[in-house]
């Protein structure tokens, strides 16, 4: 499995504030990775560093091949028509695939002679995404592409992005603060919290190794063998999100964690981490 993106010890400071601190992660090629975290966690800073728009104060970014970046405030010119936008993209990008761009927009039913300002939010996102894809990148980096879209447009954008991934080798890194939008479309999860990488891994593997346990009050440590990520207590019960398989214990009932619960548990416990073991060291 080749690595599409690797960051090592990435640190970025804005004046005295540290936006990213010692971020190391490796994303295998062909994955669709969700970058999630609260506002101010450093998501946009990380994406800008990966896209080469921002030089880190320390650490390195290594990308295998070409990167295309789509900023959150879709970089389109309102007065251009869709066709003029493509012409602009062709002039700026040597590896531009015009046949692909034209066919993609035709398939989406977006008229070439329409001005960008007259398109819906979903259509503007599709045009910006088409411009990014027509550059034939190996790594596509999308900063909050769904932020200002209604649920139907979000679904359509993600569907057409998944088709692009199915059509050719492409790794995608997509930031969002809405986990539900990413459940069926992403297969890799990166949780960024307070400038640190807290979780990075295959989503199915992460879900398989985390459980929600419910048990008696006053037992926040949980059953033997469980590493507690987050605990919440009420008068009568203790609810734990744990990593690893606990020893069977009749006082505790267990069920699989869903993606949203997993993300929330880590965000509420910034000191917890689920990261791959260093290479060459087995757990």
């Amino acid at each position, binding site marked *: 499995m080749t690595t599409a993106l690797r960051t090592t010890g990435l640190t970025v400071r804005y004046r005295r504030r540290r936006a990213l601190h010692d971020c190391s992660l490796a994303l295998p090629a*062909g*994955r*669709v990775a969700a970058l999630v975290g609260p506002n101010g966690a450093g998501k946009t800073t990380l994406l800008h560093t990966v896209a080469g728009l921002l030089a880190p104060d320390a650490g390195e970014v290594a990308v295998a091949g070409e990167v295309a970046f789509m900023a959150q405030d879709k970089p389109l010119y309102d007065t251009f028509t869709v066709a003029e936008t493509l012409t602009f993209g062709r002039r700026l990008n040597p590896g531009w695939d015009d046949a692909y761009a034209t066919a993609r927009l035709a398939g989406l039913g977006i008229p070439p002679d329409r001005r960008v300002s007259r398109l819906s939010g979903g259509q503007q996102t599709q045009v910006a995404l088409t411009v990014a894809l027509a550059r034939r990148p190996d790594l596509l980096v999308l900063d909050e592409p769904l932020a200002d879209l209604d649920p139907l447009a979000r*679904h359509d954008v*993600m*569907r057409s992005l*998944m*088709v692009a*991934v*199915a*059509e050719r080798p492409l790794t995608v890194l997509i930031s969002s603060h809405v986990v539900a939008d990413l459940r*069926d*479309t*992403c*297969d890799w999860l990166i949780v960024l919290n307070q400038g640190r990488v807290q979780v990075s891994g295959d989503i*199915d593997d992460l*879900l398989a190794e985390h459980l929600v346990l419910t048990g008696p009050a006053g037992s926040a440590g949980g059953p033997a063998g469980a590493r507690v990520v987050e605990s919440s207590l009420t008068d009568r019960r203790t609810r734990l999100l744990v990593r690893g398989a606990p020893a069977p214990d009749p006082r505790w009932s267990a069920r*699989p964690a*869903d993606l949203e619960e997993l993300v929330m548990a880590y965000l509420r416990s910034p000191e917890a981490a689920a990261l791959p073991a260093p290479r060459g060291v087995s757990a």
Partner: protein
Amino acid sequence: MMIEFHLDRGSGVATYLQLVHQVKRALRLGTLRPGDRLPTAREVVDALAINPNTVLKAYRELEREGLVEGRPGLGTFVQRSIGGARLADHTALRRSLEAWVRQARAAGLDRDDMETLFAMAVAGSPREGTA
């Protein structure tokens, strides 16, 4: 297309497993037969808006179980059916079951009642004679 996948997003069952189950069900019912081509990852993705790796994972699982075979550049093809004979061929059994359903309806049972009774009968049959 021989099979059209659908998703139950609230079921809690992993998406790739839902696809695996639907192929197996189609193999049991005989709506998918040896030699049939499964839809390409792109076709499934376009219909369901899911990650293509999820489709490939489901197909790998089916291939591991010897039910389908991936032929590079051509697609993924059904290798064998499940259960020896196809269910659709069990005409006599289906007829008697249909007669039973008519009787049950006449006795005032609804669909849930019938499914519960049927599940009890299936679960109880290996222990026949011990009751």
